[in-house]
């Protein structure tokens, strides 16, 4: 199961490499005076989270708050904990580590995590390694459905108007992306980000949570933000 994920990672890593090579060739070809890349720079490309939270009541809370700071495997590697222990852990995340989870969601999340913890098969972790089929670029996204997906999954970070100023987005480092200035990004780039997440940021991978059609729908909705801002 895992090699597919590993391949995906390699594909992304190599496309990153091609991008760099592309930039190099471009600057050589045009004899530009742009700063020469030096051998003093080291970069890595971290894989995004191949795991996701399994379905269940309260999952929305987990994929909204827990994944801000850490991947879902932090939960699934745990030995069985009681709901009292999970509540204690959530409170530690809230009070000590500044997780913005509202007080009224703590109980729902502790129930969900306790249940997930019981569900997890012995000696294994629920894996979502399978590479989802890529959403087709030809399909037109449905704006109303996209708005509904956006409101449920994206608004907390990216804000109502997509400016990256949602209640959680504002407190992230780096902050949530401003979706009103994405005009130059290709659909493929944005689809990749929604599907696989962005390494080094709180943007999670949504491919286990959203169908290819929903990803297309939300992309169409997100596109409206930059179209509207460029009209002004």
């Amino acid at each position, binding site marked *: 199961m*895992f090699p597919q994920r590993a391949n995906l990672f390699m594909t992304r890593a190599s496309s990153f490499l091609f991008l760099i090579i592309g930039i190099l060739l471009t600057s050589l070809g045009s004899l530009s005076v742009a700063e020469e890349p030096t051998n003093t720079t*080291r970069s890595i490309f971290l*894989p995004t989270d191949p795991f996701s939270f399994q379905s269940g009541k309260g999952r929305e809370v987990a994929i909204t708050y827990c994944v801000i700071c850490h991947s879902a495997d932090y939960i699934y590697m745990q030995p069985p904990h009681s709901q009292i222990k999970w509540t204690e852990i959530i409170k530690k995340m809230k009070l000590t580590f500044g997780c913005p989870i509202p007080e009224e969601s703590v109980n729902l999340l502790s129930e969900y995590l306790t249940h997930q913890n019981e569900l*997890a098969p*012995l000696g294994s972790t629920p894996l979502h390694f399978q590479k989802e089929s890529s959403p087709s670029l030809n399909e037109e996204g449905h704006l109303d459905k996209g708005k509904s997906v956006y409101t449920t999954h994206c608004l907390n970070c990216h804000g109502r108007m997509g400016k990256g100023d949602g209640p959680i987005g504002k*407190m992230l*480092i780096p902050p949530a992306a401003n979706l009103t200035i994405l005009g130059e990004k290709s659909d493929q780039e944005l689809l990749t980000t929604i599907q696989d997440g962005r390494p080094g940021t709180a943007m999670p991978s949504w491919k286990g949570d959203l169908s290819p059609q929903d990803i297309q729908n939300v992309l169409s909705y997100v596109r409206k933000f930059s179209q509207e801002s460029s009209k002004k």
Partner: protein
Amino acid sequence: MDHPHLHSSDGLTRRRLLQASLIVGGLSALGNFPVGAEPSSSITLPFERGRRPLVTFPEKRPLMMMTTRPPQLETPFPVFNESVFTPNDAFFVRWHLANIPSTIDLQAFRVTLRGRVKHSLSFSLTDLQEQFEAVEVAAVCQCAGNSRGFSEPRVAGGQWGHGAMGNALWTGVRLRDLLEKAGIAPDAKHVRFDGLDRPVADATPDFLKSLSLDHAMADHVLVAYAMNGEPLPFLNGFPLRLVVPGWYATYWVKMLNDIEILNQEDHNFWTEHAYRIPDNPCGCLEPGEKASNKVPISTMKVRSFITNIPDGASLNAAPQVLVKGIAFDQGYGIDQVLLSSDGGQHWKAARLGKDYGDFSFRQWETQIALKPGQSYELQSLAINRIGESQQLHAKWNPSGYLRNAVETVHVSTKG
């Protein structure tokens, strides 16, 4: 003796272990393990929820992935049988905060000394290499929670097997030399270290650790730029890492870029509230008991491991079977390693290997006789030069820190 981990209801775990041991048993005559031979496979640690996929992260061979973000990767245990120094590409990885830089430009990178000093100073990596004496130390870097998954009863936290440790030859400059160049103010008391990693949510405390000034001035505390003769792997703290030999890895701040000299104790979260142990000689409690007082974790307890025979191995009977392993402590050095093949009833001394310094892994080996159709409980027990030895039975604390129990390798022979 009761071995709860091996009586798991998860038959698969046990079976997998036996399969693994068969493969390893076949190759052990060659003195090698098939490490990383199956990058797409997984390793199952002998405790509940112990399955760890082997995943290749940048600059690393396939390692046991505990968590993806922030990355926490465990060294597969057979690696410790390869060599006294843990290869850089197999060295364990543990970050606290997910906001880790993905690019570092050495032309721009500086490490700064500031606070209670006469002059604030900044150094590039080249400055450190050209202006200061290069110093080497062989030292074990071990996570405070190494082996936490074996806690019984289980505790919350990173569920490591025994592979959240590694031994490397570290090269760098003495922290003391940097502090003296900056000029220490008369009221300086503590030194606080920060790396380039940052929290994701800004309400999360940044990861900072401190040492007393006396400790910071010790001969062997380094700002290291090389590990086993190579630049540090990115995930192990490139380009600079604090090296605090004998102390748990939480102090070994990665991607070190800020050194602040304080005139008081450090009150930041990670020093004052995290990584604390019960204030008693064993740092332990009875399960359910509350610590009346806690102190910061510091020096490592003496440990040893058998590295060439995995738990659950099935071996051929022979009058002379090689058993080898490693031992280490907080820096007094290993005086003796004893081996038992009957669960601790009888012990014999092992031969110690080459001494790479008091903070290093010390290899050891001995021979035992194995008769056909028998079961054996192999155990190693290390004693350091001030007479401290491992715990015969595991002690417990609610954070799963400080484990240094005698570990058991169960072996059976073919009839």
